[in-house]
Structures are given as structure tokens and as C-alpha cells.
């Protein structure tokens, strides 16, 4: 399955995003990211991408892709 990765500044923002996506029925898996392995992000299915980013924007949660 094709996946899509969303990055966050801190683990707290990643958790907050995961909860917001969860509420909308979008499953995600948290993972470490970045060249130093010291960032956090969420893996989602690629088909959820548009809806997921819309939810995060609405919730005011900053992310990068």
C-alpha cells in the first residue's frame, strides 16, 4: 500500500495530529524521522492525504511534508 509521511516539529504535535486524524477515522502510525533521527511524523495511506492535510490545517497543527 502506498503511504504518505507528514512531519511535525515535536512529538507533542505529532500526537495531537494523530488524535485529530483518529477522530476523523484516518489511521496513522507514528515514526521517527529526519536525517538525525530526531523528528517525529505520521505515516498515513496515500489515499487519505488530502483529507488528512485538510484536518490538520483546520485544527491549526503545523506540519511539513
Amino acid at each position, binding site marked *: 500500500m502506498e503511504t504518505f509521511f507528514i512531519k511535525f*516539529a*515535536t*512529538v*507533542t*504535535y505529532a*500526537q*495531537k495530529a494523530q*488524535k485529530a486524524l483518529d477522530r476523523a477515522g484516518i489511521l496513522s502510525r*507514528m*515514526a*521517527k524521522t*529526519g*536525517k*538525525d*533521527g*530526531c*523528528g*517525529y511524523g505520521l505515516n498515513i495511506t496515500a489515499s487519505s492525504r488530502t483529507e488528512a492535510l485538510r484536518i490538520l490545517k483546520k485544527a491549526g497543527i503545523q506540519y511539513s511534508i
Partner: protein
Amino acid sequence: MCLSHTREAKTIFVYLDNAATSFPKPDYVLRSVREVLGGAYGNPGRSGHLFSRNSAGLVFEAREKLAAFFDLKNCENIVFTHNATYALNMAILGTVAEIRKTDSKPVVVTSVFEHNSVLRPLYALEDEGKITLRIFSPDPNGAEDDFHRLSAQICPRTKLCVLTAASNANGHTFPLERIGKALRQKGVLLIVDASQKAGTEEISLPSIGADMLCAPGHKGLLGVMGGGLIAFSDTCRILPEVILSGGAGVDSLNRKMPLVLPERLEAGTLALPAIAGMKAGTEYLTTAGIREIAEREKEMKALLTDGIGNIRGAVIYEPHLAKGSLLFNILGRDPNELAASLDRDGVMVRAGFHCAPLAHAFLKTGNQGAVRVSPGAFTTRNHVRFAIDKIHKAACSPV
């Protein structure tokens, strides 16, 4: 009353030192802490494996519970520290450092009822020439209210006010909602020390208008020692400068701490067992009903005020105060000896100056301080009756 199973087996004791730390802790809190100590929990927010994720999940839930508890929308505004003193130092020193980027010597206002965890950081800043410190006291004659006494200290260069939500010495409070609103209008930041208030009464950060609220986890919140927090208002007007730097679990190649809360102010490993305790304590308070607990504590203080007030030679400092600790002396008696005598009789209180030297000076307790009696969430009428009886006995015994 409790039966001690330690050194002095089967001794009845009554604990009235809840202003220092609450006792007993609810079983639910203890179970939650034990679960973390013995369970599958790694370092939160550090690694990506299951145990680390378990811990990070617990910390996130704790942030959410505490944010709701203080009426906040954003859980990232809960910053965990190791106790209230750490929280106050980070809030005060960090805020002043940030303010000083545009004003080299701002005026900071505080009160005589502050604990040394507020006074000492402010004294240090004053001694270093970084702030002008103004300390206001209530009107000794009671003619002018605290709001006007505080307002008189505010000038155009006042940038910060640090106030207790309730004095640890005798429960003295200030009209925080009125003060917070006035300070917001004047552009003055407000940091509240809620060490004695958090968990003993409902606190809505938006209602009191404070920018930051600092609290320990082991007092009214019924958690264990080793945890504290800074709750940032959703409308906080400043991001304090970093006072303590170190690992934050993210952005390791950067020379500086992260820019966003909470990780910006959470250097080093979090005190997971204490955070679990705070979370569980908050859940317990919410379930048991914080209003009911507050009413019971108020009733216990009234019984103590009445009972101690009837003892010959007793002086209660500000006996009109309905909540919090009760501070008293027996004329002609050394408060420290009185507390030691009560300890021998199984009543645990605290004598001395309670790390609040200016409060004692204002209240004129004398050169040996006074005795503080602080009921808590589990203090009963029987505890109070037992304590009053022993205080009466100690007061009447030959010096």
C-alpha cells in the same frame, strides 16, 4: 486517622501538613505510579520503539487532562517540570530575560505573601540590576483593599506581576480575576503561583487572566513528589526565554532548544512516575468532585479556627480567611517546641517561617515564626477534634 506501620507501630497520627505535601495519596494515584515504575515504559519522546511510545502516550494524556483541568484548549501549553520551584524559576527568569530584550530594567511587582520560590529568583534579578522590584503588602488597617494596594505599584515600566493564588503560610488570597483583568488592560504580564491552590479549588486560567500558572503535582493535585508544571494561557502574551537547555528528543543537530511549547522548556528526561501521579490525581479530583473537596476543606478550616481560637493565649493570624492553611501562636510558647510536642502526640504540623519570610514579618508572628496547620482533601472532623485536643493539651502544659 491512620495507623503507622513503620517505626512507631500502632501509633495514631493525624496529618495536618498538606501545605507541604498532601497525605494520604489516593490508591488510584499510587497504582498509576506503580504501573509506570514496573511497566513497559521507556523514555518518553526520545526513541521510536514501543516502550517509548507507551510513555509518550501517557505524557500526552496527562497534558490533555491537565489542560482541561485548568480550562485550556491547547494541551501543548502544559509544560512539565520537576516541581513548582523549577516551574516558577523558569517562568520568572525566562519571562524577565525575554522582556529585557526590549526593556533593560523593567519593574516587577509582587506581594509580601510570596514563597521564597518567587522571592529568591526576583531578589537575584534585583541584585543583578536586571529589574526594579516592588513588593506590596495588604493594608494593615484593612482600610484599602488588596487590589488598590497592588494597583498603586503599577507604573508605565511595570511589565510583570508575580502573585500567589493562596499564601502557603495562612491562605491569604488576592482578587486574582480583578487583578488579572486590570493587568491585561495595562499590558502587564501575570504569573500565578498556584502551589497551594491547584487541586484544592477549580481554577480557570482564562478567567483569572494569568499568562502562566505554576503548580506542584504532589500537593492539591494529589500526585507524588518530583513533578510540577507551568500552564500557559491559550492567550499568553510572551514565550519565556530558555533557562535550562539540554535534550528535547527532537532536532538534535540544532544548537538551540525547539521553538515551540512544551518541548522548548522541557530539557532532559521527564519525571514519568510523577506525571502519571499528576494525571491520576487530576482524574481522581474530577471524579470525586473538586467542589465537594473544597467545601470539606473549608469546613475543616472553620472547625480548626473555632477550636484553636478558643484556646487561651491563642493568636490566629488573619482568622477571617476561610480557606487554606491556618497560622497560629500560643502566647509565651515557642512555636517550634509546640510543633515538636504535637508530633509526640501524633499531630503533624509545621512550625517556623514556612519559606515565606515577608508574610511572617507582615503578620508580626515574631522571631520564631508560628505554627501552621494545613488540612487536606482527606482531613475529617475526627482528625480536627483530635488535633485541637492535643493543641489544647500542649498549650496548657507547663513551659
